[in-house]
């Protein structure tokens, strides 16, 4: 027969109230554990999001390039033949992706791909009066390129516009060359050169990029780099940044080109993020174990202290299952109250971090929030931990022989 849990809940509440010092201590312990897990998760999440935004803000999720040219070694000689061989690696020419518009079209129709942008990129020399700088020329269709790296958000001067004969410069490069909006500079690549007007300045978020970036119309770059109508690279932006590795693997098998994900080009960053995730996971597990042991130890003591009451309850007609549930409810209550207090504490810690931890410019170092989904997840884990911690003491209480318990 199913009956309401009024008995279990009332007895559990009274038992907890009776040992209120122990109850408060363990609730504070659970709250501290929940707060630490929630805060560290939010902090690491914010840190990783910030790092990824900065890293991927200036690069594609996936880049497709022509395969490197390799020298093919001559066939192996007949056995017993002495051969002296010196194979030198081939110097890599600037080459276009064969039939890149068709490849770009295929890529654009690939599920998970949010944007595709062709690019003609190469090295050049930028000159303005006495100043000369080695630069990276990036020829793009600016609207498409904007969808890859959010160029519009990086503008520090001028509009996002790239007419023939115009260039967008990295802000530091503009300082180095002493140019402002509307000024002209000359780009030289071997025998070709072109004079361009500075249309806008951008801050790519990375000093080296700001010192070398020159973005020009695709046709301008094709002409400068002597690859008429070609594209040296196709950049992709994905709906899910973390799917880049898998998609790059699949595309690498399908296309006769080199396909590189952002994870491959930022292996150290990915290792660091993985290390962070592992560390966070370990901290979570350790805190979870401590919380479970804390709740369990308090409930074990409670079972020992309340042996006689348990015996009386059994004599009064409480079933073993009811006694079991009394202690499970205690674990759940401790977990739930501790979880709520812990989430509130974590929210306060997040607010304190945002308010007090700021960079040299007075702005918060990076955004850190406690998403409701994370708070709920941590709270649910604490609740489950509370119930799990109570299982062993609860079973012990339920197994008690009522006559023996009353005699104690």
């Amino acid at each position, binding site marked *: 027969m199913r009956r309401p849990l009024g008995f279990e809940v009332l007895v559990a509440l009274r038992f907890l109230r*009776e040992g209120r010092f122990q109850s408060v201590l363990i609730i504070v312990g659970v709250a501290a554990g929940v707060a630490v897990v929630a805060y560290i998760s939010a902090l690491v999440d914010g840190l990783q999001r910030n790092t990824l935004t900065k890293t991927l803000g200036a690069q594609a999720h996936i880049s497709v390039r022509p395969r490197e040219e390799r020298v093919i070694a001559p066939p192996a000689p007949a056995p017993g033949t002495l051969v002296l061989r010196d194979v030198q690696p081939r110097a890599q020419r600037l080459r276009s992706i064969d039939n890149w518009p068709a490849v770009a079209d295929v890529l654009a129709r690939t599920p998970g791909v949010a944007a595709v942008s062709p690019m003609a990129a190469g090295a050049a020399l930028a000159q303005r009066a006495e100043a000369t700088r080695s630069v990276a020329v990036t020829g793009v269709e600016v609207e498409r390129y904007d969808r890859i790296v959010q160029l519009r958000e990086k503008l520090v001067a001028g509009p996002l516009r790239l007419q023939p004969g115009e260039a967008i410069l990295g802000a530091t490069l503009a300082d180095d060359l002493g140019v402002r909006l509307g000024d002209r500079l000359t780009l030289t690549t071997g025998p070709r050169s072109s004079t361009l007007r500075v249309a806008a300045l951008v801050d790519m978020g990375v000093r080296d990029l700001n010192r070398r970036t020159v973005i020009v119309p695709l046709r301008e770059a094709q002409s400068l780099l002597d690859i008429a109508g070609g594209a040296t690279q196709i950049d992709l932006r994905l709906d899910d940044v973390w799917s880049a590795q898998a998609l790059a693997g699949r595309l690498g098998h399908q296309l006769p080109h080199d396909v590189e994900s952002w994870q491959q080009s930022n292996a150290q960053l990915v290792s660091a993020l993985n290390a962070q995730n592992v560390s966070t996971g370990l901290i979570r597990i350790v805190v979870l174990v401590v919380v479970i042991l804390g709740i369990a130890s308090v409930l074990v003591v409670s079972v020992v202290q309340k042996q006689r009451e348990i015996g009386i309850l059994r004599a*009064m007609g409480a079933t*073993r299952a009811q006694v079991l549930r009394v202690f499970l409810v205690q674990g759940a209550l401790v977990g739930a109250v501790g979880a709520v207090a812990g989430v509130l504490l974590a929210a306060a810690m997040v607010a304190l971090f945002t308010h007090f931890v700021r960079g040299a410019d007075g702005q918060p170092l990076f955004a850190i929030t406690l998403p409701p989904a994370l708070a709920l997840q941590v709270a649910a884990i604490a609740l489950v931990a509370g119930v799990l911690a109570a299982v062993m003491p609860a079973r012990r209480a339920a197994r008690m022989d009522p006559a023996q318990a009353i005699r104690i």
Partner: protein
Amino acid sequence: MDGTNAPPLLALAEVRKSYNLGQPNEAEVLHGVDLRIAAGEFAALIGPSGSGKSTLLNIVGLLERMTSGRYEIAGRPVQDHDDDGLTELRRSTFGFVFQFHHLLPAFSALENVTLPALARDGRIGRRVAQRGRALLDAVGLAEAMDKRPSQLSGGMQQRVAIARALVLEPALVLADEPTGNLDTASADDVFALLRSIHADAGTSFLVVTHDPRMAARCDRIVELVDGRIARDGPMTAA
């Protein structure tokens, strides 16, 4: 004995109880006890310490299982019940009064009284609450319903325990030394209360006692010596 064909309230036959079964320190404390209690009886279970009175009371109250023998309640054997079945049977048949009252300290007097109903139903209905208040009123504790056990005297606590034993209207109240921890005046009051309940409601009582004065106020005396029934008969014949 009721002298009718109806089965007795409970009947034990050849009941044995051993502790530490199969171990070197195995000890049999009940050696084939036969006992029948009829509805409406007020019986005393007496005997020296260690004679097995509490063990027999626990077996009767389904708090312990016998090692061998037969035990029937209202003509139905109890051996076949599992733990939940025994709990259900215990709840519906018996009320318990212990020597040290054994009230739950975190609950008020009224909550203690209604606790068996809460365990049975999962909630306290209006009828149960009324009965709890009426029982506390009947045992003279109308003013102490909201008090905790620690705020009551020993005699008052035992009265609360008696009210608790009666809340589910049991057929038989098992009382283990109900006056053993009380002064003489309180003991007399409590015993008088048990007798008046027996007289008014017809509830059966099996009272374990060491006190000859209390035993003398019972209708029937069952004496247990060394785990065997040494004497069983009406008080007048004792």
